[in-house]
């Protein structure tokens, strides 16, 4: 599989979610699309099926009263984007597979890249799967998340399967790894390139950005974010 790594401008949560969805809905997929986010400020996103009130309360409890949580198209829990390294991957997902299989593939590649950068993390493989879903992404490690040597969760992801394509959105916590953002981003780029095939980075062209902007109003709307 070919891969294009796309560089996009700094955006807020609605802009990031819209750009990822535009990539997911985009032209025929002959390349996986990998992107490291650049944020314009603190942001909060929450899972597709989660109640908005839980995300709002979580923001308020940490004093983020001015931050509007944005519902993702992907599943998963509440994520505070304040110093994490956020990235996404749009990939071919033709055959129905368990989410764990997808996470294992992406996170194993990430662990390999982080190891090359001197940061050690491993796949979380508990003896039994915890029941239900955690409200906050980093409140506990799920199977196939990455955990640091001290057991702290460092990488969690969320997925959406739409047709034969998948969207992965990941959040990497850097503090437990003792690694700088640039080094972490480079390690992820390299590891994804190794796993999904390599092509050179390219910038988001205007048509891609425009496709994202067309989807932005929905991610800013109460109808979307407060739908439940």
């Amino acid at each position, binding site marked *: 599989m070919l891969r294009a790594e796309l560089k996009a401008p700094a955006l807020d949560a609605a802009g990031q979610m819209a750009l990822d969805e535009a990539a997911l809905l985009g032209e025929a997929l002959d390349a996986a699309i990998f992107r490291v986010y650049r944020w314009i400020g603190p942001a909060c996103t929450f*899972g*597709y*099926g989660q109640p908005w009130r839980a995300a709002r309360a979580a923001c308020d409890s940490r004093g983020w009263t001015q931050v509007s949580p944005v519902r993702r*198209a*992907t*599943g*998963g*829990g509440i994520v505070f984007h304040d110093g994490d390294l956020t990235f996404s991957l749009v990939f*071919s*997902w*033709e*055959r*129905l*597979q*368990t*989410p*764990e*299989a*997808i*996470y294992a593939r992406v996170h194993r590649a990430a662990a390999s890249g982080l190891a090359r950068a001197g940061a050690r993390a491993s796949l979380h493989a508990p003896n039994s*799967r915890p*029941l*239900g*879903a955690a409200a906050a992404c980093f409140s506990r490690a*799920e199977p196939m998340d990455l955990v640091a040597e001290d057991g702290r969760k460092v990488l*969690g*992801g*969320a*997925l*959406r*399967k*739409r*047709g034969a394509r998948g969207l992965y959105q990941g959040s990497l916590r850097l503090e437990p790894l003792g690694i700088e953002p640039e080094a972490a981003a480079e390690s992820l780029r390299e590891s994804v390139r190794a796993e999904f095939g390599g092509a050179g980075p390219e910038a988001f062209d205007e048509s891609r950005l425009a496709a994202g902007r067309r989807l932005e109003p929905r991610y800013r709307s109460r109808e979307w974010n407060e739908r439940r």
Partner: protein
Amino acid sequence: MRDPKTLKYQKSHEWLSPDGFVGISDHAQKEITDVVFVEPPKIGRKVKQGEACCVVESVKAAFDIYAPVSGEIVAANADAAKDPAVVNREPYGKGWLFQVKPSAEPAGLMDAAAYEKFLAAEAAHGTH
């Protein structure tokens, strides 16, 4: 519970009963794993075959569910929305998702035997 042998199947793993009920196959519920959220379509919505109209979410992954036939949504399973795990427990029974009043004959659906062959071929094809 419906007999899986009496159902028609779509390649995206939805089943369609003769009376228009729609759900996901046992294979699909196993791959999706523990369902924690179901968002059925609104009653009265007109859908086309192959149109995404419902979402099923497991832990950390959301899956689009596609209409296996064109028509109007005439029922949505509120019980599955309240108790999403029923989709895992009874994919052919109480875990149905919605009901369509067909407006046209569905095209390209597989009977149970063909669906089994399709699953075998997919498994043989391996991972992507």
